[in-house]
């Protein structure tokens, strides 16, 4: 311990004890090294340097191993926290992991994902942009950036990064990743109601789908959403071809065929769907309507004249009856002279036509079928507008009328 009167040597900084004038360190006899020649000393320095290199090498190897282990430990903690839906805790853990492995792209990636999960979007964006700067072609980084912009409804930026992700580099199974990204992009576009863009992406996706029933069914569903029923039907048909025990695909196919007014196909597909999943009420309902359309449609091919006439008369009676019931439920007296409006108009037209509705007249004048079916459509539409969704037979008549209208157009 320094005593009173001690002082520091101005040359070497060691203590000069009180009473002494010379520094004991500076005045100590010089060692062996001082007696060596300069060249020898340079060689000694180089040898020492080599030894120091080896020692530092061992030390850094151990250090890096320890750092990696610590980084891995904090990364696992973060993963666990993320799985337990504690994103804030995961963010802290991943931050700590990055202290020990600062440039570990995987850790940075999961940190960005955790930040997105924690809804810290601004921080996530900076994190991802830094990653992007380093790996602009990385599929995963671009996908995360796309998701970030999708979350903030920035459609143009999201599409840009989704596209880069589709064409970006993926470490493993690039085909599958690219497909998944495109599917995600399609979902996003549909969510944002960007139907045209979604349809283009779906067409591109359709060309590269593997033999996977679920994927075909999913793509079929998305085609349904963009109202491309023909391609949707193709996809569902492909799906049921690959897996005939998939009720969703049968229902999808039935639904697509139904929308395309191909009721024969629709009945077959929907029947399979209902057989596999009797709880699918929508399919059951559409199946019933499809069956009714096939039973009631007077315009079907290969019908005899007699059958066509019978169906026309039955359709007329059904529509008139529906119109009357609807009018009654809405409190409209169709018999009253002063009644006006669509009900009266349709009813009066029907009343005027009713005397002509007989098998004999229809046999004499086959064109009357068209006039009667126009009236059927008028009555059904009037009733539907006033009373909402009609019973199944009337729905079937409406479908027949619409199909006929579309065909004529």
């Amino acid at each position, binding site marked *: *311990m*320094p005593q009173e009167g001690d002082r*520091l040597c*101005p*040359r*070497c*900084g*060691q*203590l000069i004890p009180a009473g002494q004038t010379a520094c004991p*360190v500076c005045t100590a006899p010089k060692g062996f*090294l*001082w007696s060596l*020649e*300069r*060249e020898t*000393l*340079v060689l000694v*320095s*180089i040898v020492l*340097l080599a030894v*120091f*290199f080896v020692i*530092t*090498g061992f*030390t*850094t190897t151990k*250090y890096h191993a*320890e*750092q990696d282990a*610590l980084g891995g*430990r*904090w990364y696992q903690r973060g993963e666990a926290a993320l799985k337990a839906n504690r994103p804030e805790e995961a963010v*802290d853990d991943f*931050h*700590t992991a*990055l*202290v*020990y492995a*600062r*440039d570990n792209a995987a850790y940075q990636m999961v940190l960005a994902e955790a930040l997105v999960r924690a809804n810290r979007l*601004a*921080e996530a964006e*900076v*994190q991802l*942009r*830094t990653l992007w*700067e380093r790996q602009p072609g990385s599929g995963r980084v671009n996908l995360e950036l796309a998701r970030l912009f999708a979350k903030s409804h920035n459609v143009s930026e999201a599409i840009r990064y989704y596209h880069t992700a589709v064409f970006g580099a993926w470490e493993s199974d690039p085909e599958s990743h690219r497909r998944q990204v495109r599917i995600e992009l399609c979902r996003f576009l549909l969510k944002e109601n960007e139907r045209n863009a979604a349809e283009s992406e779906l067409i591109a996706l359709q060309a590269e789908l593997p033999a996977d029933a679920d994927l075909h069914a999913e793509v079929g569903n998305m085609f349904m959403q963009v109202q491309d029923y023909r391609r949707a039907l193709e996809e569902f048909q492909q799906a049921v071809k690959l897996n005939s025990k998939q009720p969703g695909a049968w229902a999808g196919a039935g639904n697509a065929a139904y929308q395309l007014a191909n009721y024969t196909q629709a009945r077959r597909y929907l029947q399979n769907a209902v057989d596999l999943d009797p709880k699918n009420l929508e399919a059951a309902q559409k199946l019933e309507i499809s069956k009714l359309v096939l039973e009631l449609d007077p315009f079907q091919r290969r019908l005899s004249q007699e059958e066509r006439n019978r169906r026309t008369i039955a359709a007329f009676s059904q529509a008139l009856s529906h119109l009357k019931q609807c009018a009654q439920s809405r409190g409209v007296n169709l018999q009253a002279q002063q009644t006006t409006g669509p009900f009266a108009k349709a009813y009066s037209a029907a009343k005027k036509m009713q005397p002509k509705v007989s098998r004999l007249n229809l046999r004499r004048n086959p064109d009357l079928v068209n006039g009667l079916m126009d009236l059927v459509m008028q009555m059904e539409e009037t009733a539907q507008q006033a009373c909402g969704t009609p019973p199944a037979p009337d729905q079937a008549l409406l479908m027949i009328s619409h199909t006929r209208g579309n065909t004529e157009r």
Partner: protein
Amino acid sequence: MRAPRIFLHEEGLFLLLAVIIGLFSGLAVVCFQISIDWTRIKLLGSSLAPGTLRILLVPTIAGLGVAALVIFVFPRVRGSGVNQTKAAVYIYDGYIPFSTVIGKFLTCALAIGTGQSLGPEDPSLQIGAGIASALGRRLHLSRDKVRLIAPVGAAAGLAAAFNAPISAVLFVIEEVIGKWSSAVLGAIVLAAVSSVMVLRLFLGEEPLFSVPPFHLVHPIELLSYAILGVVGGFASLAFIKLVSYLRLRSKAMPKWTHYVQPAAAGLLIGVMGIWLPQVMGAGYDIIDQALHDQFTWKLLALLAIFKILATSFSFSSGTPGGMFAPTLFIGAMIGGAVGGIEHIFFPHLGGTVGGFALVGMGVLFAGFLRVPMTSVFMVLELSGNYSIILPVMISNTIAYLISLKYQPVPLFDMFSRQDGTDLPSMEEQRERTTLTVEDAMRPPAEIVLRAEDTVADASRRVTASALEFFLVSHRNGDWTSVTKENLRRLAKEGKGASPLVRALSSPLLPWLHPDQPLDAALRQIGDWPLLPVIHRADFNNLQGVISLADILAAYGAATDEADRNKLSTEPSAQRAALNPE
């Protein structure tokens, strides 16, 4: 005694030694950084937020250990290391005992690793300088070379600590050597490059910080950076004032308190660390997070304030450790906070908070450490992005000027004066006005003779003049002189009709230009009573004349003014510290 056989020429050896020093320094810094990290992990734990008991006890107990080591074993390791290296160069002929290297290594690793708010860069600088000094002395270099070798080691140590050789070279030139000396520049560059190479070999290629991409969105954003310069300038000022005040106070406290001051600082930092663990240690990872926009502006501002407090406590307690890392930390936090506020008020500008944090680091470097050139190049080197140059230059200049205006004595010079030494101030040298010939010269004398004039004409012209000495202008731009006495003698010799150019045999006069330093005039004037000061593009155009009396008068006036300025700018506390009695 046997004469040494010299095969290695001293100049060649100096350059070879620079490389060896660089390699040794690089290895030492690698081990130093690993030691700091290991100390932190073993004592504080691997988490970014250690437990309360640990956070309070570890820095306190380590503070006691550091104090004991500094007082009993390594008395020269106090402080950051920059001034100690300067002292070695300017006072101790480049001598830094090797025990200082070991002491600095151990005490700083313990202090920084246990959370003291200090950095490893300045100690690395001193470790490098110490290694260089030891090698220089062992290799029997001349006294001049030993004096020059310490800055070479300093640059190597700092370059490895920063992983930025350009900034390290600039800092050593700007703060330690003070001039671009060709004698040492090559060696400094070699040493810095060697040390960085070693560091990258062992610790990887990554720069000190992972810097996010920076783009200046709109030129109007430069206004925000100007505001950052103002905020950073005043923050630097507050930091300087607080550190120097606390350092002076803690030095003046009873001697027994020196044993517990680092522990007390450790305890205070531990208390802060319970709520803000980010302020503990060097804080590189926190700077990294700030660069990546991971904090709100309020937290950034809070961190800046508490880091200023924590660093002031740590440094003034006598705990060895550097100021660079805390300066970068505070700068990054202030920059981030200003950037965050800009985003609130001007969201359309869209500049990144990380960009502001990056520029902020340079701002504090310029304002607090007062190294404007290094501050600009450091940010450029760290970011690797040239587009940041405009914001950096604007902010740094503003911060530097504010700091210079309100705190004329730079931080390191103030420390050296507080310690009772008067190391040369590089900033004062830079700022000092060099006296030129123009400051001392008088208007041209009324009579200037021409060499074509005859002796009779010349005699007639000078008869009425009270002067004895006259300048003679030659067509080719030469100047000679003649006295009245000479002219009278020539007339008597019958040379009245001869032109002066033939009649005179006096030697040519040395001439001066108005922008030349006054030293040049002093060297040239010799015994001449008067020298011509001529235009640089027209040698016959006489701008003025200068005599020895004029030169001395100019020096006298300049000295009086400097004394007046010194008295007005030197704080009374410093004068008291310099003259305790």
